[in-house]
Structure formats: structure tokens, C-alpha cells
């Protein structure tokens, strides 16, 4: 790793820590003049003065949610960057090409069908089942979109985006139908899926997300060189000793895994995978050796800020986070379209 990259990583991580601390202070609960940070330290040191409700608010509500925002933001940004590298196009993010929709569709099916045996299955397996279903949905849609839009290593961008539109429409229709069919409790779950929220954060889910993240990053983060070389064309990348086919398979499976886990736990939070690489590209061009590692932290920053805003500006209620990311993402989408108008 170059020194420059290490400096950027350290600086952005520091910023993330500051933002996470700020986020810990945000909320309506009254700690009776105590600082939330003090409560957190007390929890760690086992101070008996901390009341159960204070502990719950800080540990199980705020901290779990902050961590989830960090994990999901990072995962979404990295999956966006990796997908863009594979498709060689800055618009190829999991949500725009329908992968998220595929994951949502399978997750929604699992919720509705799963209600029959929900009472008999422990919670951890329920969560895993949901993630696995979302993973399968994501994997199938990725393969489908790739098959439809790519011939001989060249991706037709228009076809890629349109197949995303088609798949999203299908997902939307199925989820709509399920909402129509479903009972009250499922209805709440399904609405939550469609709009995206980090409100359901638990330490269990964070644990699963962390594992998914570690597995995926251990393979993907070093692929900067390979993604750079693939800009030359896949044949030329192979002449540079890059095993293109193997790397593409790894990206497809791992992105599906990451998107699946995110969709299972937070619903469809769009555009993170579009915004983060776009901003990084403005500064570092398309050098994946830099933007791929940096999107890990930048994604966290973006989603943490968005989530903190979403739960503060209309407190004690909250705005669905997908609404906020869409507000940021749509202009970016348009900006990319204008920039690439001539080359598409």
C-alpha cells in the first residue's frame, strides 16, 4: 500500500471515529445531565451506577445502530466500487442494475413464507435464513444481468441499466403483491424493506455483517490492480498476468453475499454504492488501487451521517434512510449521465 493511501485511510478513519462519537450524543433520551460517552465508559468498566434503561439506550440502541451504519455503509460502497470495476462502468451499482431488487424479492418471499414456521425457529437462524435468501436472490440477478448485457467481455451499458429497470419493476411488483396479501406484522416488515432502515440494528446482526465483511474484504480489497488492468480490456488484463475469469467470479459471489446481507438486515438503502465511488473518482480518477480501499471508510462515513440526520431532524420520529440517500444519489446519477452522454 502506498504511503499516500495510508494517510488518507488514517485521516478518514479518524473522521469516522469523531462522527461516530457525535452520533452517540444524538437522540432524545435524557441521561439526567450525564454524557452518553460517560455512560458508555461506565458500561465497559462495569460501573453499577448505570441503570438498565441507560445501558439499553446506549449499548443496544445507539451503539448497535451506529455500528450497523458503519458496517452497511462500508459494505454497500465496496460492493458498488467492485461491481463498477467488473462492468467497467460507473453506473453499474448493485441497486441500479437490479441486484438489490433481486435480493429484496427473495427476502420478501422468505418473510411471508417464513411466517409459517417462524415460531419454531431460533432468531439467529431466522436472520441467517433471510440473509441466505437475499444472497441467492442477489446472485441470480447478477448472473442474469451479466448474461443479458455482456457479450465477449464487453458490457452494453444501456442493456445493463434497462435489465436493472426490468428486474426492479419485477421485484417491486412481487413485493407489492406480498404487501397486499400479508398480515399486519409482515406488512410492517415489508414496508421497512422497501424504504430501508437501520432501526432494526442488533448486535447479532452486526456480528453476521462483520463476518460477511471480513470474508469479502479479505479477497476483494487487493483487487485494485486487477480492476485497473481490466479497463484495458479483459484480454489485455490477462496478458498482464491477471486471472480475469476467476476474479469476475469472486466479485459476483462476494458482491451478492454482501448485498444479500445488507438487504436482509436494513432493506433497500440505495445509491451508497453510486455516490461513494463517484466522489472518490472526482479526486483520484478511476485508480481502483486507491478508490477500492478508500470506499470502505467513505461508505461508513456517508451512511453514518445519513442515518444520524435521518433520526435527528424529525426526532422523536425518523425519516427512512433510503429517502435521504436517494436525495443525494439521484443528482449524482444525473451528473454521471451528463458526463457520459457522449460516450454511451
Amino acid at each position, binding site marked *: 500500500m502506498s504511503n499516500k493511501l495510508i494517510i488518507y485511510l488514517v485521516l478518514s478513519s479518524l473522521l469516522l471515529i469523531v462522527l461516530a462519537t457525535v452520533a452517540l450524543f444524538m437522540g432524545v433520551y435524557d441521561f439526567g445531565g450525564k454524557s452518553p460517552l460517560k455512560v458508555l465508559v461506565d458500561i465497559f468498566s462495569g460501573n453499577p451506577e448505570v441503570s438498565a434503561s441507560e445501558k439499553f439506550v446506549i449499548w443496544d440502541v445507539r451503539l448497535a445502530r451506529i455500528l450497523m451504519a458503519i458496517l452497511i455503509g462500508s459494505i454497500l460502497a465496496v460492493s458498488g466500487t467492485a461491481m463498477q470495476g467488473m462492468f467497467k462502468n460507473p453506473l453499474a451499482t448493485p441497486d441500479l442494475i437490479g441486484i438489490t431488487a433481486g435480493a429484496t424479492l427473495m427476502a420478501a418471499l422468505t418473510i411471508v413464507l417464513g411466517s409459517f414456521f417462524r415460531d419454531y425457529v431460533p432468531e439467529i437462524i431466522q436472520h441467517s435464513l433471510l440473509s441466505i435468501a437475499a444472497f441467492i436472490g442477489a446472485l441470480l440477478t447478477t448472473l442474469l444481468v451479466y448474461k443479458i448485457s455482456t457479450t465477449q467481455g464487453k458490457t452494453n451499458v444501456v442493456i445493463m441499466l434497462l435489465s436493472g429497470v426490468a428486474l426492479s419493476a419485477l421485484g417491486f411488483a412481487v413485493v407489492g403483491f406480498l404487501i397486499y396479501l400479508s398480515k399486519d406484522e409482515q406488512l410492517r416488515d415489508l414496508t421497512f424493506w422497501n424504504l430501508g432502515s437501520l432501526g432494526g440494528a442488533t448486535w447479532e446482526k452486526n456480528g453476521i455483517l462483520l463476518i460477511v465483511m471480513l470474508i469479502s474484504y479479505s479477497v476483494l480489497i487487493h483487487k485494485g490492480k486487477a480492476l*485497473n488492468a481490466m479497463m*484495458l480490456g479483459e484480454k489485455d488484463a490477462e496478458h498482464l498476468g491477471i486471472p480475469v475469469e476467476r476474479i469476475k467470479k469472486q466479485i459476483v459471489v462476494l458482491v451478492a453475499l454482501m448485498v444479500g446481507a445488507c438487504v436482509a438486515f436494513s432493506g433497500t438503502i440505495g445509491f451508497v454504492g453510486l455516490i461513494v465511488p463517484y466522489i472518490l473518482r472526482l479526486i483520484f480518477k478511476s485508480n481502483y488501487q486507491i478508490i477500492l480501499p478508500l470506499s470502505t471508510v467513505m461508505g461508513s462515513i456517508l451512511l453514518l451521517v445519513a442515518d444520524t440526520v435521518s433520526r435527528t431532524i424529525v426526532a422523536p420520529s425518523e425519516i427512512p434512510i433510503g429517502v435521504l440517500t436517494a436525495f443525494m444519489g439521484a443528482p449524482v446519477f444525473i451528473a454521471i449521465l451528463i458526463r457520459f452522454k457522449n460516450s454511451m
Partner: protein
Amino acid sequence: MIKGHQINYAHKKYHILHSVDISVQYGEFLAIVGPNGAGKSTLLSMLANELENKHPHSVLFKEKRFNQWNLKDLSKNKAKFSQHNTHDIPLMIKDVVMMGRYPYFNSTPNAVDEDAIENAMKETDVLHLKNREYNSLSGGEKQRVHLARVIAQLKNDVKHKLMFLDEPLNNLDVKHQYKALRLIKEFTANANTAIVVLHDLNLAAQFADNVLLMKNGKVAAHGNPHKVFNEKTISETYNFPCAICPNPITKNPMIIFGN
């Protein structure tokens, strides 16, 4: 160095190559020439292992089939310059040239890699552009950047390297055409091999050790320039009249097309 035996290639129903035999020696500069659609680029792609070959034993590189090679070793032994004009690569020139060094480092290039790209950029005259964005370059400048990348890729201690070049002179001005050919010639002078698809027969006659003339996916003539470039063969292959005389300076064949 590299041998091809009975190479065939068909795309859908069209046969593009018909049982081509080819053998290239260490230190040889082979020019592949021929009219449009003769299968020159396809032959080069087959030799460079870019196309799916139904008979993988038909091409032997250093006595080994390509699937017996380790991909990374292979990239230190051979490189290919392809036709790149349409690519959109939002990177700086030095980053593009550095790709040639990817087989040599893990995440950070070391001093040897930096030197290699610096020299390669100097040789193809793009050093002054190294901090420019690739997409802002003209076609000829882009060609020179990729040439520098290929040269940087083969800068190593391996003996007997092979360079494939598919129309490297496209868009280059006269000075850089000669410069590029001299670089290739220097490369082959060190017992390395270059297989180059060329359009300009006179340049092929002047620089190549051997010429492979192709027509309709078959070898029309193969041998040294004096043997291949004769009036009958050339005018028949190109279906266009020509006259050939010795170049007054180099004494190589000089081809003049037209009546």
C-alpha cells in the same frame, strides 16, 4: 520460440484461418502483412492465446502449451500490444504505463518498476505527458502510451521474450513510426522475438527479418522480404498492380502501388 501448427479458427460459420503453419525463431522480427480481412489480427490473437483454441496443442510457446504456463510467468515472457483506440481509461499516463509492471509487484511499485516505466516513457516519447489524463490524449499519443506499457512489461532478466504487436503504427507520425520500429528492432537484437502486424509494406520490407503474407485466412507467402516482395505475389494478393525496385538507400525491396 513460438510454433503454430495447423491453426484453424472459425467465427460462427465463417472460417477466418485455414490450417496456418508458423514458426518463429529467437531474435526474429516477423511482420504479418496482407489485405483487409486476411486474418492477420486473428492469427496474432491465436498465437497470443486470446481466442478459444479448440486444439490447444497447436500453439507451442517455448515448447510448452499455454495452459501449461503459470499466468504470471507468462506475463513476464510475452506481452501484447492491441488496438486500443476506443478505450476510456480515466487514469493518468504514468498509471497506465505502470500497469505493465503489475506482474512484478504486489501493492506498491518499487524503484525498479518506477525506473522501468520512466525509461519506457522516455523511449516512446511520452515522458512529458506522464501526469496528463489518458483520455485527453490524441490517438497517436495513446498508442505510444500503450507501447511504453508493453515495453515496461518486458523489462526484466528473462531471456528470449516475445512481443506481439497489432498495428502498432496506426495514428503515428513518420518520426514515431520509425522510432517505434527501431525500438522493436532493438528488442529483437537481444535474442527476443517480435511478431508485428503491419500495413505499410515498405516499412515491413525495411525492418522485418521475415514476412508472412496472408490472404483469405491462408499463408500466401512466407520468407525474407526479398523473397516475399515480388511483383507477381504482391499484385495477386492485393489484387492491385504494383512495381518493385530496390530502395536506393537500403537496397531492400521498395513497393510502389499503382499502374
